[in-house]
């Protein structure tokens, strides 16, 4: 295991800051409307190419919509989808993980079986069929992703809970007659928070890629929304004549996910030394696999061929 640099990854921080600013201030930053285009100005190349127009630095798409403006608005979709999906999945997973780890016994056995099954499902396939059958919509995409994401939280939080439970302060609280709910709330949960923060960050990239994939396949965020995956799909048929339609949104996605992943790694090293033993190898096998006890295969499966 190579020693990691402990410095804050400034590049990642910068990209993320830019992303958040873009998402929050999209209406003020974007020079044009993300959904309305001028057909007269369709397929204008980026500014540095012949025929480029300074009004559209990254060119326009086949409906004359400004690519830059769409990317800026698209950051909002990526951000909101990942925040909401991770919020829902994180809450559900944390609750189940806490209960499972603290109660132990049969509750634990049943919940962890469920978690194992959840982790073993072929994510993309299930997501595709779920969204397709239930009409692609913003809400459905978020729900499906959350549904596929909670086991990752549950598994990790349960492991943490098991470790924290062994501490004396928990035993003392039990002796003092505190209820299980009180102990979980006051003693266990606060100790799980750093780990939660790390897993959540490590999942953001995964969620953005998953949403992008679904949108690209036409079973995600519905058009004419400026989702990055949709934009890439839009440009698919025009690679030869208007490559900028697909290139730039993909670049935005790559940069974002890269930045989030680097930030997640850094956070993990800083906040949660215990997770570090997972090491680069397992992390490589699957960005999502942060649990030390998982078999590596599942991580590969979750990632290979998928985003």
């Amino acid at each position, binding site marked *: 295991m190579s020693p990691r640099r402990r410095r804050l990854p400034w590049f990642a921080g910068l990209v993320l800051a830019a992303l958040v600013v873009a998402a929050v201030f999209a209406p003020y930053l974007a020079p044009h409307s993300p959904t309305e285009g001028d057909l007269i100005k369709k397929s204008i190349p980026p500014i540095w190419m012949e025929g480029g127009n300074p009004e559209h630095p990254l060119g326009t798409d086949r409906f004359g919509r400004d690519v830059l403006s769409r990317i800026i608005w698209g950051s909002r979709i990526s951000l909101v989808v990942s925040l909401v999906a991770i919020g829902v999945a994180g809450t559900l997973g944390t609750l189940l993980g806490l209960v499972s780890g603290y109660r132990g016994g049969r509750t634990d056995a049943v919940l962890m079986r469920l978690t194992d099954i959840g982790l073993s499902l072929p994510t993309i396939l299930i997501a595709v069929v779920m969204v397709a059958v239930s009409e692609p919509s913003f809400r459905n995409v978020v729900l499906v992703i959350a549904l596929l994401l909670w086991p990752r939280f549950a598994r990790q939080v349960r492991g943490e809970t098991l470790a924290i439970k062994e501490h004396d302060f928990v035993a003392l609280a039990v002796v003092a007659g505190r209820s299980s709910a009180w102990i979980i709330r006051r003693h266990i949960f606060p100790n799980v928070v750093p780990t939660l923060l790390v897993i959540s960050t490590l999942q953001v990239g995964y969620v953005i890629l998953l949403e*992008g994939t679904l949108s690209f396949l036409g079973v995600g965020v519905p058009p004419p929304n400026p989702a990055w995956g949709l934009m890439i799909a839009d440009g698919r048929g025009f690679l030869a004549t208007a490559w900028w339609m697909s290139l730039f949104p993909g670049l935005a996605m790559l940069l974002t996910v890269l930045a989030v992943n680097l930030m997640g790694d850094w956070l993990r090293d800083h906040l949660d030394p215990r997770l570090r033993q997972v090491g680069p190898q397992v992390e490589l096998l699957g960005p999502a696999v942060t649990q030390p006890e998982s078999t590596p295969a599942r991580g590969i499966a979750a*990632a290979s061929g998928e985003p």
Partner: protein
Amino acid sequence: MASYLVGRAFQTVLSMLVVVSIVFVLTRLSGNPIYLLLDVNATQRDQEILTRHLGLDKPLPVQYGIYVMNVAVGDFGNSIISRRPVTEHIWERLPATVELGFVAMFLSVLIGVPLGMYSAVRRGGVLDTAARVFAVLGQSMPTFWLGLMLILFFGVVLGVLPAGGRGGLLHLVLPAFTLGYFTSAAILRLTRSAMLEVLGSDYIKFARLKGLHEQVVLWKHGLRNALLPVVTFAVLLFVQFLGGAVVTETVFAWPGLGRLILESITTRDYPVVQAGVLVLSALYLTGNLCVDLLYSYLNPRIRHVSS
């Protein structure tokens, strides 16, 4: 070992059952299938006959039981569009998917093993760093975008490789690389760490002490011992490729199972969608099972953790 084996196999069956149930519930949610089958001016009587014929008049648990039994024996019904048995469609498309997965696996070994070996020998060198970048990018790059950019560069700009469709060997290069990119990175890391471990062993030191040529030490004594887990692992990865084929097949217009699923979503041919998802999921879960078992065989520690 035996109890681990049985437990893991049992879990795979459970997972499959969950997938089947999800698909069943979704199809029932998506509305009454008879409206998809009958045209608008069908009479009340037609509807009743069809309902009875399809068993839709029976109570839901019974329908579910029948559905599971049918799936278990491989009976998926008929396609709504072509009226042919769904299994025929599946069998038509399966070879293309298998072919692509097979070549992708081969390519990832071809890229991953030499690079990984080189990274291990020249640890910390330029190529080791480059390999690390390659691996980190693999985690952050949307597969579909990578595919499109490869098409843009090799198909459109250079014009040396076909952009899509199934044909000769050349048609396979881009989709196989796209599908195998992530895995090559995984294999690279695996080879690297296996090789590092082997190179630190006593028999390598002894071989060097004996005065053997460094190349002989590396290739004959080193690689041979490091390669076994890598290759076995790579062969099993092949099955998992099948699960992630949807995206790559769509990008490259590859006439495989994944694309069949998406096409059928567009035409609302739900029996085909269901069967495709179930077949791919089954392959994927079986592949995972094999990889896990192989790992527990190679690494006895996993067995203890799981029991």
